[in-house]
């Protein structure tokens, strides 16, 4: 554990993330501004379509912020897993020629995604102030929720990155799964839209749905239907957390097992 954050690893992480960002915005006039502008524009489109045209009714005030939080969290999850998936293969030149901790490469992708999440949360904060959202005492809990989402995404990322080295189909499969996940998670619609309570309960077992609703609860409105309210204290409400822990451990173990052979399999 001690040398996970050794001087060398920290320096390497910094340079890998820095390079990532530099290359991403290379040749564009606005440069880093895009990392703020892109989510902002995406959000404006979704807001106009879903809040103004389709008039999705979340049944609470501040539905713009409500929608925004969902999109931001999902985007983070999507970006982190997709970027990590190709990270090992994408850095094949390093893997084949130098001994650096393999997990560093996935980790640096995840940090890049975290930085983007931070920028997006700044936009959320701006909207919250503009929309006069009343901050409640539950706000600090958002950090725990973000941690949960991060660990869930990290477990999946490690698994995907290692599997992608052997099977390139993983990329396409994950794309489809993410599409399905986007609609199975109550991001663009309120959970109450689903009239069947059993289905509501099943949907909420997904850690992303649980985390998303919790985030909305802590930040925007205590009227948000959460898994605790849905299961009314039954033990089922622990299932999303068990899934997160399981995915993280399984991802770590699989990655550790495969990492030895990355250099020859890429």
């Amino acid at each position, binding site marked *: 554990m001690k040398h996970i954050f050794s001087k060398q690893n920290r320096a*390497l992480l910094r*340079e890998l993330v820095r*390079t990532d960002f530099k290359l991403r915005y290379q040749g564009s006039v606005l440069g880093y501004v895009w990392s703020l502008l892109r989510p902002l524009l995406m959000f404006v489109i979704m807001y106009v379509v879903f809040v103004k045209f389709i008039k999705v009714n979340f049944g609470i005030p501040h539905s713009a912020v409500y929608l925004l939080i969902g999109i931001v969290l999902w985007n983070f999850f999507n970006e982190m897993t997709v970027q990590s998936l190709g990270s090992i293969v994408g850095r094949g030149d390093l893997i084949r020629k*130098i001994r650096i901790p393999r997990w560093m490469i996935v980790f640096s992708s995840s940090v890049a995604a975290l930085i983007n999440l931070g920028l997006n949360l700044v936009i959320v904060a701006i909207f919250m102030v503009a929309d006069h959202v009343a901050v409640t005492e539950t706000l600090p809990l958002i950090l725990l929720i973000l941690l949960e989402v991060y660990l869930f995404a990290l477990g999946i990322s490690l698994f995907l990155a290692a599997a992608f080295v052997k*099977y390139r189909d993983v990329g396409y499969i994950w794309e489809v799964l993410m599409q399905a996940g986007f609609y199975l998670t109550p991001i663009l619609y309120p959970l109450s839209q689903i009239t069947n309570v059993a289905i509501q309960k099943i949907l909420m077992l997904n850690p992303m749905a649980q985390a998303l609703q919790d985030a909305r609860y802590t930040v925007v409105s205590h009227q948000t239907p959460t898994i605790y309210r849905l299961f009314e204290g039954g033990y089922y409400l622990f299932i999303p957390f068990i899934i997160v822990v399981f995915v993280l451990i399984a991802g770590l173990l699989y990655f550790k097992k495969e990492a030895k052979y990355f*250099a020859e399999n890429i």
Partner: protein
Amino acid sequence: MDAPNDTNDIAIKVDHVTKTFKLPHDKQTSIKGLLIGLLRGGKRTFENQIALKDVSFDVKKGDFFAIVGRNGSGKSTMLKMLAGIYEPNKGGIQVNGKLTPFIELGVGFNHDLSGRENVFLNGALLGFNRKEMEGMYDDIVEFAELERFMDQKLKNYSSGMQVRLAFSIAIRAQSDMLLLDEVLAVGDAAFQQKCFDYFEELKRQNKTVVFVSHDMGAVQRFCNRAVYIKNGILLHDGTPGEVADMYTLDNMESMQANEEKQSKKQKDDGPKLPKDFSLTTKVAEQTAEKLVLDVNYKSKTTKDDPMYVAFSVIRDGASIAEMTTPLDLKLTGDGHLTYTLDLSLFNAGSYEIPTILCLQSSRKLVALSKHKNRFIIKGNDPIRGASMRLPDTWQQK
């Protein structure tokens, strides 16, 4: 455990290491392929390529250690396992001390970043943080002689410039043991001299170096020990001179084999020679002092149309000497000659003697021997690098 002093001076211990690569006949990188494979009874056909077989050796602290072998012999695989990039299938590698993690220069260089940014990225891969790199930055740039180019993108660098930059960073790596793979393959004479100076410096500092190269000159100049690997098997562990000789011999054998194949193939498309003539020369005897060639010629010529045999001695593709049979020795019809060459005139190296048969009247080439008559002068002569020495006498007064 009983003799701690013995184990302490060993830097790297390679213990019965075997490495095989599983090469699927049709590389399955898709799940569909996997499923089809399973439907066929799970029998995917693999080729187990043995890259290294039961290799053991020790590198002592302060050794300048060469791993020599022909292309595909497994030496780079060995180096990658030493670096920890590959895992051995069997056996183990113990490393005593800090080892450089890279085996090639300029790992992670990105062509879309500037020279400056690449210095920091490459430095981080070697374990330096930004602050340390800033301290070394000016020295690195100066050593690479690239002051004017540092803000340009790497893709605008020539390959020589890239290597210079990479080398300047790499030599900052602070470890007790270095792994070097073919550093000398690129770069001009001035760069090679820099490399050599650096090697001398490493030797003075008593660093342990494992060196993979095809340059037997450098191997003999710097290394104190060498191993020879052929087809994944360690054939010899000894002095650089012995290993360099094995390498040269091995190369020659395969060149000869290739040549025979070629000459069989090229029977039709060689130079058009008259069919009535033939010439064969073979090495009849080689000792340290002399080389005897057997020369046989066949023709239908008569006294009016004599011939001569010409020899040239070739080293590294360049002719360094030419001889002919004396012109008053008018060769006609069929005949057999022996030719003796005084080998004491040659310095160490590998030579060949192609022979041809010509008509004296028109100097026209009428036949050439299939055999190139290779010979090697063994030895390790760091002083006399040229091919030949002239007969001379010295007197001390």
